[in-house]
């Protein structure tokens, strides 16, 4: 059994915080822009509601937090697609942040590994 780990590098994580129930829109936007998979968790946010006074009721305290792993090159495209779909340019709709990740490890199918190796060798030759 091969116990060697295969790492993927140049990975970034986009984390979006939106009002509870808006996750589906974000997930679709992320996947439309090429993100492979997303993670959704429920959470409770504190901050903007308290500062908006009576208008705060328009912002749901419970949030959906969506984590998307993308390659560093995809980051901007996915982020801007999410930003547009989530209407983050309107107040109270949510925000996103991007974190560079050092490396990621998981199972990588043999066929994918094969193409990766070929690509590397092509690059080395040139």
């Amino acid at each position, binding site marked *: 059994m091969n116990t060697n780990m295969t790492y993927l590098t140049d990975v970034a994580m986009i984390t979006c915080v939106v009002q509870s129930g808006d996750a589906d829109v974000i997930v679709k936007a992320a996947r439309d822009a090429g993100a492979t998979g997303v993670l959704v968790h429920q959470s409770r946010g504190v901050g*903007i509601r*308290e*500062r*908006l*006074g*009576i*208008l*705060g*009721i*328009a*912002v749901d305290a419970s949030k959906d937090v969506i984590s998307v792993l993308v390659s*560093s*090159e*995809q*980051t*901007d*495209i996915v982020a*801007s697609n999410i930003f547009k779909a989530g*209407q983050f340019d*309107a*107040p*109270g*709709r949510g925000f996103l942040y991007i974190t560079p990740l050092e490396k990621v490890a998981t199972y990588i199918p043999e066929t994918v590994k094969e193409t990766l190796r070929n690509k590397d060798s092509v690059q080395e030759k040139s």
Partner: protein
Amino acid sequence: MSDSYRFGNYQRALGHGDAEFSFNALNPKLEWDSHGHLIPYQPPRIDLTPREIFKLLSPYVSVRFMEQVKSVIPLGLYLALFQILILRQLVQDSWMIMSGLFAVIVGLMFFMEGLKLGLMPFGTIIGKRLPEKSPLPLVLVITLLLGIGVTFAEPAIGALKVAGQNVVVEKAAYLYALLNDWSEALVLVIGFSVGLAAVIGTLRFLYGWSLKPFIYGSLAPVLALTVYGASDPDLTTVLGLAWDAGAVTTGPVTVPLVLALGIGIATAAGKGDSGLSGFGIVTMASLFPVIGVLILAFYIASTVTPAEIIAAAHHASGAVQAVTPAWYERSPGMEIVLGVRAILPLVLFLFVVLRFILNDSLPNKGEILYGIGLTIIGMCVFNLGLTYGLSQLGGTVGSLVPAAFMSLSGVPISPIYVYSVGLILSLAFAWGLGFGATVAEPALNALGTTAENLTNGVFKKKTLIMAVSLGVGVGIATGLAKLIFDLPLVWLILVGYLLAFVLTIFSSEAFVNVAWDSAGVTTGPITVPLVLAMGLGFGNATHAVEGFGILSMASIGPILTVLMTGLWADYKAKAQARAALEAKVGSRFQEVQGIV
């Protein structure tokens, strides 16, 4: 040699016109006191421009608005189209009905949001804290009182009172007396029954009792009282109301608030939320009021005679014509007074429990007060919409439907169709109304999800929704047939519930819970007034004695269909499992398939 650039770098360089600022520019100014302790930082209020406020509020409002539009408009359209296309009658006062329906939408929107912000936090806090601090008997007394309070706050209860104005006193004296002279006592009795159901339901999931004995135990007196009532010709008229009362009680206020308290008690006792625990209260809350209302009717019957009621009613109607009623007894004022009176006692009661029994204060007071305000405004607007929109629409359609098969004085071209065709059209209309209103009910969707989890996927959500909707459709059609042919309600109920009784014996506990609760879930704040008004209008047009009973048919319908579907699904799962065992090929895989 051509240069190659990373596309990502190229995009970043272009930047879409993005701007970057340092977050450090937004650092708060912290201060320390003389001892060097940090003074807690108070962030300033955010001031928004009107444009930003609009952007903030518009998604908030539109989501909630559309939620109600989705449940009101299709039904309204269905009724209007049926009237125009099949009955070939123009909708009278269409503008008033339209604005009434709009009021229903806006009212429900406010009401539901207010419920979520204002009343639910109360229920949750009390449900969590009360069982920890108080002995069980006190908790149960409070549960009982809460049951009464939530019944008054239930929006559909107003529909019963509206319906009472259309009852002809000479034909159904006791029914008239119940809905007019005794209407407060009626709601109180219904509320008390709901409270009792909540107490027993709470005890049930505290001790993990099975629901079956409770169904048997409450069905016996209910059916006995019904049969006794049916033996007296004066009291027969009350039966329909009594059975419909059960359907009215289980609406958007009662179910969540009572459940919050019940689950809180169970959790405090270490009995956790076992999945099944939420069930049963709805079942009993729709059976107990039948007993309560019937007993009240018997009491009235023992104190006054029909002749006295009729005389009093004539006297009262004479007096009303003489003086114009005060502003709070006339239409717009009355609805507002009713709305305030429905919500405030409940809120005060919850507040007293919280303040004096729990010695607790409200978290974020402003929001809860705002929520309560919204609930009251919503209730008032909803009541207005009920009078001018739902009741009006249901009443006119109901009074016109008979024109399809019999001649009506108000409709010159009636009968529009041959008797049999018109009859079939009318029944199909009733079926469609019940089916359509139920499929869209959000509460049913939630029940479907629970049922699917509970039965490990044997009972698909879709199957449940279809079964319940079919049941309600058939039930409403049966109810209409009852009015047309003047069938005795007692036999329909007796046969229906005895059948349900037998099916219950053979069904598993999970299905029993789901089936009996599905009856209560289907009767939301839109369906109830619409069906009640339609039945009464229909009854008046066909000169039936009273138009009640349709809702009770709509309750028994889904119980039967769900129980039968459950038995069938059980049978199918067992048969498949057996086949898989015999085949012994990939048995595990097939078993999984059999369950799915």
